[in-house]
């Protein structure tokens, strides 16, 4: 695992395979994500998009294949010719390098939004509260919530909650951010405020994998679009190509329905 | 366990029966006696103090044995287990000597107490003897031996004579049984004569009816393996009877009629 981090892609996904019982959800997925790249993942419901993201930060244990961040395998340790699953703090350290934003926000309802953002810093990174606090406030300001730091999540709108969730993930200074349909649970008018924050992030060079149904966002922001169906990558390429001129039937029929 | 604060005299090797005690008790200088402190007038609590006829007897016993008394309030459930686990050496109180119990422990009999009939004041049903209980309901205490037996016997007799039978309910303890008499749920209680007298003197709502009957031995319990303690107890009771303390104490509690001439071992016959 002594690979030179500057030579390989930031994220490498190889032969990633996952089944739930008899249902194969990912059947050998391969792709890379370069530093600073924004990749949008599209596909019908049940095609395995969420499972792909969850395997990347090892919330789900793959059945075969690997995910590597800066050349380091995520969730496993190599012992001889086999991979052994990591546990405890080592896995936690790897996960802390990958931020994730969920469809249902998943903020901690018993903590104010400032505390939500501080949580990772103070508990995982063990930063003292004094130094963590200014950074948390700065992040909340950046997502436009400077005035709400002492509110509880349930007292915010969905859009505001999702922006807090993004700030919470950013606080860990992740190398890669994963977004899983992070606007699908929002009222249409609130979608744009979250997408705006994500566009800013992309502009600032954050590496991102975005599972979304917002075709317009994919067209504007994505460097690359991946279209998944039934656990496979059916088509991928620059956003303009895939969205404007899909090569595969399945992609075409899907786009027709959601656009 | 609650050691009695009043009994903290040091071991007295000069006491008449000190040398009758087994070595381990001599060494500790303490005799641990257990009993349930909820049965007046035998052993009960007066405020924070343990008192009663049997408590006085215990004090007198350790006096002639030359050791200190450590009283452990020991509810019925824990008496045998307490003896076996050596939490206590002896159990005393309202404990009758019966054949069944002789199978479990050795019983040193030191008193003979009859049963009495307790009725509401004025004895509205005019019940004066176990022979005219037909049609009445008897309340008793669970596990006390005679009441249920008497009720069953009399029930049979009444039925045979073509009269209404005798009902019986057993309660957890004497207090619950007394409530049953007060609410007229039961007409009469059959219980230990001393307890009956105490109750009728204390509450004014009940009185003792007729004559005492069917006396039985009260005993101090020791494990069958502890013959040394058993023999020491027999000797101690003999000494108390002979030096007059025994009679004095019984008189103090109005229980002179329960006196026996000499202690016996496992003499219960029912």
């Amino acid at each position, binding site marked *: *695992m*002594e*690979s030179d981090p500057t030579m*390989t*892609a930031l994220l*490498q996904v*190889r*032969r990633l395979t996952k089944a739930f019982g008899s249902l194969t959800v990912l059947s050998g997925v*391969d*792709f*890379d994500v*370069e530093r600073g790249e924004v990749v949008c993942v599209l596909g019908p419901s049940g095609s395995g998009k969420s499972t792909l993201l969850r395997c990347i930060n090892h919330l789900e244990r793959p059945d*075969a*294949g*690997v995910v*590597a961040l800066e*050349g380091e*395998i995520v969730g*496993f340790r*190599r*012992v001889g*010719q*086999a*991979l*052994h*699953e990591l546990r405890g703090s080592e896995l936690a350290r790897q996960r802390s390098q990958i931020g994730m934003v969920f469809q249902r926000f998943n903020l901690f309802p018993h903590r104010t939004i400032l505390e939500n953002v501080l949580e990772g810093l103070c508990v995982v990174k063990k930063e003292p509260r004094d130094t963590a606090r200014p950074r948390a406030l700065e992040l909340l300001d950046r997502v436009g919530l400077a005035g709400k730091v002492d509110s509880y999540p349930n007292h915010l709108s969905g859009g505001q909650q999702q922006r807090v969730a993004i700030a919470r993930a950013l606080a860990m200074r992740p190398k890669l951010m994963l977004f899983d349909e992070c606007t699908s649970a929002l009222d249409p008018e609130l979608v744009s405020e979250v997408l705006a924050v994500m566009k800013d992030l992309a502009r600032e060079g954050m590496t991102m994998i975005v599972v979304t149904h917002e075709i317009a966002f994919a067209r504007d922001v994505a460097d*690359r679009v991946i279209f998944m169906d039934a656990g496979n*990558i059916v*088509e*991928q*390429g620059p956003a303009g190509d895939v969205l404007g001129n899909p090569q595969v039937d399945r992609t075409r029929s899907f786009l027709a329905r959601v656009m | 366990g609650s050691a009695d604060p009043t009994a903290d005299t040091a071991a007295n090797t000069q006491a008449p029966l000190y040398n009758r005690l087994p070595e381990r008790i001599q060494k500790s200088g303490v005799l641990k006696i257990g009993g349930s402190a909820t049965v007046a007038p035998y052993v009960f609590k007066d405020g924070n103090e343990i008192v009663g006829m049997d408590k006085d007897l215990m004090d007198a016993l350790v006096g002639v044995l030359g050791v200190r008394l450590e009283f452990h309030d020991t509810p*019925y*459930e*824990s*008496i*045998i*287990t307490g003896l*076996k686990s050596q939490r206590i050496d002896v159990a005393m109180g309202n404990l009758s000597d*019966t054949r*069944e*119990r002789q*199978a*479990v*422990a050795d019983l040193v009999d030191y008193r003979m107490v009859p049963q009495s009939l307790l009725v509401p004041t004025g004895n509205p049903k005019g019940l004066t003897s176990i022979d005219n209980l037909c049609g009445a309901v008897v*309340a008793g205490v*669970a*596990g*006390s*031996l005679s009441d249920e037996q008497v009720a069953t016997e009399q029930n049979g007799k009444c039925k045979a004579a073509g009269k209404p039978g005798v009902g019986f*309910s*057993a*309660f*957890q303890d004497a207090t*619950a049984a007394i*409530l*049953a008499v*007060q*609410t*007229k*749920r039961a007409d009469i209680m059959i219980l230990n004569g001393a307890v009956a007298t105490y109750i009728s003197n204390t509450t004014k709502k009940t009185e003792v009816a007729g004559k005492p009957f069917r006396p039985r031995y009260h005993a101090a319990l020791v494990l069958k393996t502890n013959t040394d303690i058993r023999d020491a107890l027999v000797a101690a009771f003999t000494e108390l009877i002979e030096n007059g303390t025994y009679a004095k104490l019984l008189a103090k509690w109005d229980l002179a009629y329960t006196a026996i001439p000499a202690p016996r071992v496992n003499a219960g016959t029912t």
Partner: protein
Amino acid sequence: MTNVSSALRDSDGTASVDTMATMKIAPVRRPVQWIATGVVLILLVLLLVSVGRNPNMGWDVVGHYLLDDAVLRGVRWTLVLTVLIMALATALGIVVAVMATSGNRVLSATAALFLWFFRGTPLLVQIIFWFNLALIFPRLGPAMFLGEGFGGVETNSVINWFVAALLAFGLHQGAIMSEIVRGGFLGIERGQTEAAQSLGMTAAQTLRRVLLPQTLRIIVPPSMNQFVDVLKGTALVAFIAGQDLLSSVQFIYAKNFQVIPLLIVASIWYLALVSVATVVQYFVERRLGLGYGK
């Protein structure tokens, strides 16, 4: 079509990501788990042997009394009492929970008072009170409010130990069940009531057809705790000359001093009854869980 950019290196003995992607993922092994299992089992066996061979446990006495008539009668009474009490308590609990959540202030205050009193007073006291009700009300009926003269049935003819136990346990458990049922109501989404109302159901129909069936699923596990509680709690009837399982063994050991073996007899029966109840619960939950989960 892919833009794979990783170098296929295998220098200094480290495998490339591509090589590793072909490696076997080791099956999860838990040596600690197996050692722990072993240690726990050995300790348990040693403990069981140690307890089993202890003469103080009196296994012969246990065997002798396990199927004794008096004990079996006690088991029957305990079961009958428990089932009736739980039925009463559940019905009462539902009524009180509906009152508490009705939004009608008189009803909800009455429910709160009921809960406070019957949950707060020791059961033993309640049992003794009910059994000795005649002490306070010699006659039941108008006489209770207006005085002796106004008549009513004689209290002692109505209230025997069984009725007293039903009343005391029923009211006490009813109070506890009302909290459980109320919790169940809170666990049902508001949308369910609204859907029922917009179909044109009345409040009673909504309760019967929509709320209660769904509450059932939520309240079965905590009710089970209560069932077990009542099963064992009925031992208190010993104070009012009742005849449940525990009091029947108490009667026996009061005579023969075999306290430990007879308590073991009672424990075996209680564990058996609880186990049967747990199995029943499993099937009830499975039936009620139809339509939920996977």
